[in-house]
């Protein structure tokens, strides 16, 4: 169904981060929001993405925000870095989705939902770290990878899953020895993202406990956040609800806190 060769070829085809993005991220790392905004504004696709993202209802701005330096000013260094990473991930998304019923807008909504709620979680946990804040941006890459690898095999996937309770992550792991989160890690390495980002993503799979307690806990919160988000009507309808296995037992110890932070009623 999916061969190791196909998987490796997919990873190889992930393009390196464009120069403008690398420069923007470098300047954000130095804390220079003004220069970073100038570089970002020079990349039309990035600036268009940032404008669309910031004007989504979940961010709650009453008036249209259209200036990149204004956007970076509102988001701050960590929020801006997160937004740029979100853009980088969106570059991998297909022009036409077939495995999942998604489109560019729905995918951007997913990114925005995850980012805003992740921020709430980090505030609750009193964590102020731009790399940890950006970690959530890598999470939707697992969806893009599933789409890329399995879309040609939709009928086989359906047939397989009608006879056996097996999720896409497990199928990939058993066939190729590498799962969706391993591929996310490879992408993060290619894009020179901080190592901690990849570790949190691995922990968020729900099946890979980490030695570092903080990373392990963050992984649990992210796992639960992912399933909270994928339980929203549009993403359920898109067929995202069961693409990976939800590890309920793994998150029960944080569930009550999660409910109050996110406002589950």
């Amino acid at each position, binding site marked *: 169904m999916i061969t190791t060769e196909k998987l490796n070829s997919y990873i190889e085809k992930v393009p390196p981060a464009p120069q403008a993005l690398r420069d923007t991220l470098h300047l954000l790392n130095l804390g220079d929001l003004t220069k970073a905004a100038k570089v970002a504004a020079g990349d039309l696709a990035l600036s268009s993405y940032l404008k669309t993202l910031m004007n989504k209802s979940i961010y709650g701005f009453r008036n249209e925000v259209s200036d990149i330096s204004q956007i970076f000013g509102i988001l701050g260094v960590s929020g801006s870095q997160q937004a740029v990473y979100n853009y980088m991930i969106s570059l991998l998304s297909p022009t036409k989705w077939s495995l999942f019923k998604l489109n560019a807008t729905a995918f951007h909504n997913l990114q925005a939902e995850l980012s805003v709620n992740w921020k709430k979680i980090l505030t609750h946990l009193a964590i102020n770290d731009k790399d940890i804040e950006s970690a959530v941006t890598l999470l939707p890459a697992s969806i893009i990878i599933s789409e890329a690898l399995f879309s040609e095999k939709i009928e086989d996937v359906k047939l397989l899953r009608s006879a056996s309770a097996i999720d896409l992550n497990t199928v990939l792991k058993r066939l190729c020895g590498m799962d969706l989160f391993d591929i996310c890690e490879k992408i993060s390495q290619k894009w020179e993202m901080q190592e901690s980002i990849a570790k949190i993503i691995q922990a968020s799979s729900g099946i890979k406990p980490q030695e570092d307690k903080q990373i392990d806990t963050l992984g649990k919160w992210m796992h*639960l956040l992912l399933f909270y988000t994928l339980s929203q009507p549009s993403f359920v309808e898109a067929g995202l609800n069961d693409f990976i*296995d939800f590890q309920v037992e793994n998150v029960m110890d944080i*569930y009550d806190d999660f409910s109050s932070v996110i406002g589950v009623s």
Partner: protein
Amino acid sequence: MRAMVKDGMGIFSPQGFLDGNNGNFFLSIEDIDATTKLKVDMVLVSLKKVVFFNRNGLDAFVKMLLKVRAANHATVGFCDFDHKKFEAISKFYTNDLNFSLFKTQEIASLFAASFKNQNKNVLLYSEDKSQRAAMAIELHDNGHNPIVAQSEAEYLEKSKATSAYDIMIDNTYLGMMGQKVATRVTGNAIIYTVSSFLDAEIGNTFNISYHNNSLNVGFRLFIFDAYKVVSMNVHALNFFSKLASSGAEYNATICFVGLTFEKTPIAFKETLEDAGIMFFDHMDDILKNKELLEELGASSAAAVKNKRAINKAIVTELPNFIDATVATIEMMTNATANKETAKVSTIEIVEKEDKIASSIGFYGDIDGMVVLVFPLAIAKKACALLIGEETDDKELVLDTLAELVNIVGGKIKTLLADVKISVNITLPRTYTEVDALLEVVNDKKGVQLDLKFDDDKFLFFLTR
């Protein structure tokens, strides 16, 4: 979202949060339609991976479940929950809990008609006395040995003796059970349990495809446990007469046990006897009489007089059957599957040691059976994607092989549909020993094909 079907049960597995906003989005109209057409005895929604739900969230699934039950008489409900979730659902539906709640899928399977899970020692407890009785009766009817705890204290005390029971039931509720004719297998006899008034509805509640599959895979003795039948009308009489006639082709015997004729015309008995149906007062009159069992065809599944030959219609579609098998093996192993020798003959298995087999029947525009025979080690390899880790558990390998054959069956159905041939597939059957398979197909002519993936050989046999 579609149900995963296994052992006659269709299971939906939503994940995450279930509330009024998203409940309706898990099931499209096509999903509900497909579920009502499933040939299963039970349709359940697993709450194992649901971390939060409210009544509105469950309602969408309840509506679907009730629709399914109305359409095909299956038992419906929820499963895989803890005590807290059980209490919550019971509270949400205090006055209209008309579906079932099974603590686990394993418990649910005890109440389902299936080839599996027979003769289990079951400890059970429910706060509700009538529920305790209802569960005990259902379990007994399904061929299990229920032990009822009359109080929670007794249940807790008895449950300490874990080795005494195969399974323990609590936090379970039987809503309106499916009205399908319950089925169990004893040795080579199949026992159907029927009750109350037998009328035209028997045509809907009796799983005719299961019966035909049983005939096809070699069962010859069918017993209707009719102790609880009050009466029968002419529609049911016609149904059973036709069933006996169609079974005659296979030399099958149909018996009724415990049927009284107080409210059923005695002339019906004569009509049924003319059709070849036999009557007994007690189940043990048959099951404990070895000579009679042999005479009735239950000593060996191979007592076939009328053998059906492979025909042109099937041979014409042979490439589709082979393609389905090859495509499935390739999908499951990522290896290229190759065809080797092919011949039309009775099945020839050179070495019988350490081989397992699985078969699946198909019926509709054409009918027949596909058999796959694997060396045990190769079966494990072919099923590695589904099994996941190394295992020496033969039962697990057999179970997984059944899943693989089920996928082959699904593929056959799709490929034949492409050439406008409509078939349905039966449940897969597995054989721990080649001899057990040979009892069923030994004298049947078919197409035998040796296939291999990597350097591992296995056998494909297509017959009727």
